[in-house]
């Protein structure tokens, strides 16, 4: 068995948090309020709860095979071909998602800050950074995530702090959306898709140093994105109201635009916001691409994952450039996250059931 790198629990939590905070919440307030109205924050809670459930299932499955990743125990639970094709599906999904994350962010950059810059340039520049990042092994990925978590969360908290004075409480009411439970549930499932990305832990569990703490730290890792998502949704609804949110392509960016900075020192706060958001996007898409390439290397039984980076890179660029207009980007994001949601909801549960029924277990850790 190949030796997996080492990952401390905190790094593990950092990876989960950084993967989740990314492109999703750039548009989240609009998509959720379109369905759930002012009850959108409950939808976020529902989505967070759903993802927590599936995450715990994944961990439970993963801990039955403490030395193996999804690609490896998949072949043990089922047969070689099914296991490999399922692994292949997961990896392709991560690859496309990672390229779309970069695309969504670049679209925002091009449409709001760097208007004259061709989108290809931004995508290529970001891809190169990501490639540099994922050429290292898991230990480095873990450290980067642990460190960058601070660079992501502090600016977000700061922004929240500044914009809280702009909230008009009447726009937040009625807190439940006032349309009954069904829209909340629909929007909750919708918000579950923006929590996708936590499933990359199927590749990370064997590398954690103290596996007993996996449950603990995975919940911690999920909690901070949940809080961030919820506050952003609440702020967006409180500042713009549901009706106006439907007219904003990038609600979170607009949120920063209407935030006054004390004393007019910085009149255009969004520039600062975007420069920090680059970090969030970088970690999201970097982590996704890393697990995708690691997965591919395990499926194809290649010793070094680095070998695959350059062959797959054109593919990432291709998927990032595939959708034409911004609407197509959102459509494709929608489709790919539905595919991902289907994978995440079905495969781990199936695998777990099979492994319990036929009593399959991996080797204990030495």
């Amino acid at each position, binding site marked *: 068995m190949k030796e997996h790198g080492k990952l401390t629990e905190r790094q593990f939590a950092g990876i989960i948090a950084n993967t989740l905070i990314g492109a999703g919440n750039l548009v989240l307030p609009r998509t959720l309020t379109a369905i759930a109205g002012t009850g959108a924050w409950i939808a976020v809670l529902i989505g967070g709860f759903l993802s927590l459930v599936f995450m715990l299932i994944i961990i439970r499955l993963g801990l039955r095979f403490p030395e193996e990743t999804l690609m490896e125990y998949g072949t043990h639970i089922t047969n070689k071909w099914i296991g490999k094709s399922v692994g292949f599906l997961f990896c392709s999904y991560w690859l496309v998602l990672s390229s779309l994350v970069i695309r969504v962010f670049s679209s925002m950059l091009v449409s709001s*800050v760097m208007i004259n810059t061709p989108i290809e340039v931004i995508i290529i520049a970001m891809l190169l950074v990501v490639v540099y990042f994922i050429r290292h092994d898991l230990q480095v990925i873990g450290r980067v995530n642990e460190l960058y978590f601070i660079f992501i969360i502090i600016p977000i908290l700061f922004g929240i702090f500044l914009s809280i004075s702009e909230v008009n409480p009447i726009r937040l009411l009625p807190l439940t959306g006032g349309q009954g439970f069904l829209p909340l549930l629909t929007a909750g499932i919708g918000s579950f898709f923006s929590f996708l990305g936590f499933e990359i832990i199927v590749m990370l569990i064997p590398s954690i140093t103290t596996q007993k703490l996996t449950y603990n730290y995975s919940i911690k890792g999920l909690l901070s994105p949940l809080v961030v998502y919820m506050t952003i949704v609440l702020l967006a609804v409180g500042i713009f109201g549901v009706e106006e949110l439907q007219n904003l392509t990038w609600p979170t960016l607009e949120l920063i635009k*209407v935030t006054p900075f004390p004393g007019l020192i910085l009149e255009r706060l969004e520039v600062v916001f975007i420069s920090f958001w680059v970090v969030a996007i970088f970690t999201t898409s970097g982590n996704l691409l890393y697990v995708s390439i690691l997965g591919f290397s395990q499926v194809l039984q290649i010793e070094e994952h680095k070998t695959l980076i350059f062959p797959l890179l054109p593919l990432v660029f291709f998927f990032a450039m595939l959708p034409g207009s911004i609407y197509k980007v959102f459509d494709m994001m929608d489709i790919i996250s539905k595919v991902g949601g289907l994978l995440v909801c079905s495969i781990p549960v199936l695998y777990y059931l099979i492994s319990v029924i036929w009593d399959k277990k991996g080797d204990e850790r030495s």
Partner: protein
Amino acid sequence: MNYIKCFKLLLIICLISFITTGCWDLKDIDQRSIIIAIGIDFAETPEGSNYEHSELIKLTAQIAIPQKLGGGAGQPPAMGEESVWNVSAVGLNISMAIMQLNEKLQYEIFLGHVRAIIFSEDVAKEGILRYLNYFRNNPDFRRLSYIMISEDKAEDVLNTYPKTAIIQGVYLMNMVETAVKKGNMPDIPFIEFVIRLVDKGIDPVAIMINSFENKIKFSGLAVFKGERMVGKMNIEEGWSFIQLAEKKQGGFEVVRDVKDELGRVTIFFSGIQSNLRPMLTEDDNFLFKVDLDFEGRAISQETPTDYSNQILFNELEQRVSNEVKRELEVLFYKIQKKYNSDIFGFGEMVRAYMPKEWDKIDNWREKFRTTKLDITVRTKIRRIGMTNLIQ
């Protein structure tokens, strides 16, 4: 071997310098035409043209002259007329007018510093949504700049230079901000105006200004119904509006003296607590219970009445409350009956507190027509001043 390595490294560094410099969108600050304020009027249609009166707009842009600002050592900075330059352009819509404007300028225009957009009253009466769209789509445009309505031509307002104005557009913004801070103008920046325009349960208002010679003056608030301006409130009505809808204290209240009907007492409001709740009456109309608690101080008294007497004092407080209540009711029923525009945001209240009822309403304006108001006003006067000296 070593040479090759060096060469490779050099090549990479050269390549990286192409993509990491970020100069694609570089534009030096002095190579932009920075617009401080924008005025929008209807253009006079030229003789014999095919355009209707309201088709052509005239956009006046106030452009800052950076070289004149700041001044040198020992030199006073340029003021008023010298620091800005007003340029007008005519077009079918904002983007065409701005294109025409660009033709007249050395550098490309930059909207990131716009402090105020001023519409003339006749433009506002025709509806302004179509003009706002350009600014909303522009990523540079500041969402916190102010929308104002000028009674005469917007161009004239921009051409009025008060003596203390260093940059005229910034002067306008400061004027509004001071009034907002004092609580006698509603705080409605661009984005708030747009939100109120879009929301079904509220109609926007905008600050109205007027200009004479070298003075600019607030002349009240413009009442909108949807995107069209339908009427105006004067300054005092504006205060009542702020007290009712914005939970700010507005200005002051002048009442007759309790003992001596010829003298007056002026009460300056320093705080307000307001509580607003919608209810449904038996005949299916909405009733709004408004509880207002004012706090104020007497700033002038023209009679020698001794208000240390508790009975007189209470009566004075009662008078102030009654007067405020009367003014609020007059304003509310005027807006309701005459304009039928819900600038108070009562519809939003219904949406917030009675979501079930709100779902049943197709047209809030129809419902608003029959809405009733039940106002309770209480006043607490904290300080009365030294009155006995007059005797």
